[in-house]
């Protein structure tokens, strides 16, 4: 168990060292000349107007909700995919019914216009 996951921990260590190290190094050698204009967010060269955290379309939220449902579906498919030979037709048909139920939800989503972007 430890044998298997020890290298992953080492990889995580090296990856973090790379990310943090390069940024710290650049902080040390980089120039620092702050000015108010430089610190203001980019907006095509004019002073920024209004709040940056504007409201955005609710569609993005709908996509996130639909994603959660389908991601769970994907998670259910994996155990079946690996054992499907042993489970045979029984497993395949059960999985078919499971996918069918989700497809009904998907069609509902589609017909309600949750997937439309105009």
């Amino acid at each position, binding site marked *: 168990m430890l044998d298997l996951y020890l290298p992953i921990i080492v*990889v995580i260590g090296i990856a973090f060292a790379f990310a943090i190290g390069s940024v710290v190094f650049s902080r040390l050698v980089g120039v620092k000349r702050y000015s108010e204009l430089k610190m203001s967010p980019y907006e095509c060269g004019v002073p920024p107007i209004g709040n940056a955290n504007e409201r955005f379309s609710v569609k993005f939220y709908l996509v996130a909700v639909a994603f959660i449902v389908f*991601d769970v579906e994907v998670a259910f498919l*994996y155990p079946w*995919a690996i054992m499907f030979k042993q489970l045979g037709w029984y497993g395949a048909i059960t999985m078919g019914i499971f996918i069918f139920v989700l497809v009904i939800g998907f069609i509902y989503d589609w017909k309600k216009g949750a997937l439309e972007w105009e």
Partner: protein
Amino acid sequence: MSDMLVTLALILGKLLFIFGVVLFMAAYLVLAERKILGRMQLRYGPNRVGPFGLMQPLADVIKLLTKEDFVPARADKWLFLIAPGITAVTALLVFAVIPFGSPLEIFGRQVPLVVVDLNIGVLYFLGVSSMAVYGVVLGGWASNSKYSLLGGVRGLSQMVSYELSLGLSLVPVIMMARSFSLTDIVMAQQSIPFVLLNPVAFGVFFICVLAESNRIPFDLPEAENELVGGFHTEYSGMRFGLFFVGEYINMVVLGSLVTVFFLGGWNGPWLPPLLWFLFKVLAVCAMFIWIRASMPRLRYDQLMNLGWKILLPLSLVNILVTGAVLLGLG
């Protein structure tokens, strides 16, 4: 005890080798991309630094390291600081499970050419790669800039949408290889690569890979000519560098994964396995660059339609058909 030490030394050796090769490849992919894009647009591309511009990556690194690194006013400082790190780290983490050659015999020991052959390698890849979306969305959110916010939100929606089809297109691969281990998946393709057995899954996976890496034709989160730079508009210096390096490391990673899942990994006649693997990865990367040179950017509604209305149903049907065929064949 000494056995443990040897194992640890081997792991460290392999890791340093992989990280060296990957960072080198990522640096030269940038140059290759600029060169090939240049040639395809009847320009020369970078050719000033060193012979044929071969020292360009070095110059880029020096430039990025010595640039000013600042946080814009009223940005969410901590999120702003860690977002590029997430992109780079997640890209590097996936490499731990990619097998890049058949096991070698060194000093009478079997040394598998993979950092760790996890028995849940596919799940590890999916888990780590779905973390990558946080780099984009946190970077965009924390910058306190309208362009960044739009880029981040677009990136979030795009990446989660295509992640579904990405995950679903791997299900047939698992059904054919009957293992989550990437080494086993390559072993299962010794006689015939999965791209020939299941071209639909390959097509879906390839498109999703392009979308996950935010490259043309799916580069809406960056979209230079409408969002200036999208989620990394406000980044400078090495933080921008981490986003940049992360993107190119990601290209190498995804190229390797296409190779492992569909192109038969290191399997191939005549040449040594390691060369075959490298050759296939470079071929996939060249394909990415070629696509970038020839495709226009999709509109956002087209992007979402493709992901949700075409790729998702297609990959679901593909799973059922693959299952039925495999069971029918016994």
